[in-house]
């Protein structure tokens, strides 16, 4: 275990108008690790991801990226976002731009990279997700699954060190879930460090190095996927997992 610690969260607390969403979260993520966070709706898992990349200000605690504190606003937000990529539940492509422009805009404007190099990289990424023929399409001409895959490579082209996925399949039609998850599986194979919030339990079990179970704004259980899905150590996790099971009613 000589892998370096990429992301360290210490006693993170987040409050909205007297309502505490995240109580006291601490977590360490090593380079190359795949962490999956599961838990009932409203348990604070999405807020947790948004606190990490600075979309939400935290009330207490600290977030460290490679031993640098990134939660005290000492570093420019733009710099943090280039290191920590994020993909959201709603496939939020920029509707006025083509697929190619969507993917390259941040690389060109934020990172000031050369256009020819960026476009070449973009085409490579598009080919990898099987959408090479769509570079001049507009978002409205694409399916939800296609848009979400493009949103992923739009984040990946910035060469982030860690990716945050916030329920990226939650608003997709079932037949499109697989194509999106396959992209993440591809990233696992490449050794990308990831923090994934999902409701896809068999997917979580297949790819996670560690599972965190959130409930009511706190980490209730941390476990290996095998242990968590077969013998969870807490009753709350047990109840949560049972809600995905159906007994025959006939």
């Amino acid at each position, binding site marked *: 275990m000589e892998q370096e610690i990429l992301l360290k969260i210490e006693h993170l607390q987040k409050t909205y108008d007297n309502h505490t969403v995240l109580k006291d979260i601490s977590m360490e993520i090593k380079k190359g690790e795949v962490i999956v966070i599961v838990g009932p709706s409203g348990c604070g898992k999405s807020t947790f991801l948004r606190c990490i*990349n600075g*979309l939400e200000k935290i009330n207490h605690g600290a977030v460290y990226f490679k031993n640098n504190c990134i939660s005290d606003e000492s570093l420019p*937000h*733009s*710099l*943090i*976002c*280039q290191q920590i*990529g*994020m993909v*959201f539940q*709603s496939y*939020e492509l*920029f*509707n*006025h731009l083509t697929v190619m422009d969507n993917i390259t*805009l*941040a690389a060109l*404007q*934020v*990172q000031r990279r050369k256009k020819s190099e960026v476009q070449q990289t973009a085409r490579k990424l598009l080919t990898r997700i099987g959408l090479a023929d769509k570079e001049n399409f*507009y978002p409205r001409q694409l399916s939800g699954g296609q848009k979400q895959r493009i*949103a992923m490579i*739009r*984040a990946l082209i*910035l060469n982030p060190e860690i990716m945050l996925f916030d329920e990226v399949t939650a608003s997709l039609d079932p037949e499109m879930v697989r194509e999106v998850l396959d992209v993440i599986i591809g990233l696992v194979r490449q050794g990308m460090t990831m923090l994934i919030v999902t409701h896809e339990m068999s997917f979580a079990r297949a790819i996670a190095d560690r599972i965190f179970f959130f409930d009511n704004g706190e980490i209730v259980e941390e476990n290996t996927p095998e242990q968590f899905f077969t013998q969870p150590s807490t009753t709350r996790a047990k109840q949560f997992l049972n809600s995905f099971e159906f007994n025959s009613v006939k």
Partner: protein
Amino acid sequence: MQDLGIRVLFDGENGVRLLLGLVVTLKLSIITIIASCLLGTLMGLLMTLRNPIIHIVTRVYLEFIRIMPQLVLLFVTYFGLTRAVGINLSGFTAAVIVFILWGTAEMGDLVRSAFISIPKDQYESGTALGFSKLQLYRFIILPQALRQIIPPAMNLATRMIMTTSLVVLIGVVEMLKTGQQIIEANRYTAPSAALWIYGTIFFLYFFSCWPLTILAQHLEKKWEK
């Protein structure tokens, strides 16, 4: 009878007078439309700030302008200001003020609703990609807002051009009034002149508004690709 009517158009200074009327109409329209776009954008952006004082002030301003017929505003500015505080504006200046007040209010509301209609996701995903606030607005928010503003803004501009015919009530003689003067002067000698004069005015208005429609269509087509 017909050619008598059309002859009125070329009789004496009539044609030139009609064109001078058009100049008044266009001068008023162009000045006030440009000013309204600039001030309206500013006001629209102010309105998107969640400041309660700005909210109340802009809201009252907008509702006031909307409730008041333009005619009343023209009367209040031209005659009311003289009576109340002795300010004696020229009719044209009063018209410019009223049209800018009106255009800014309407434009401000268009800009506000366009910005508000852009989903929060667009701001967030832009921020998550590392864009600065300025870049976010320049590359992502403004282009999308502009697309929504253009059609109703063109509509507003056309309405403003048409409404310039009201300014005659504060003594500004524009194209339509000039036309009516010509028609009435020939009421007994060439009754069919009305048809020709109104026809000419129709075409002059049409060609004043047409470029705006063409521009709007061009932009929409460009963005529709």
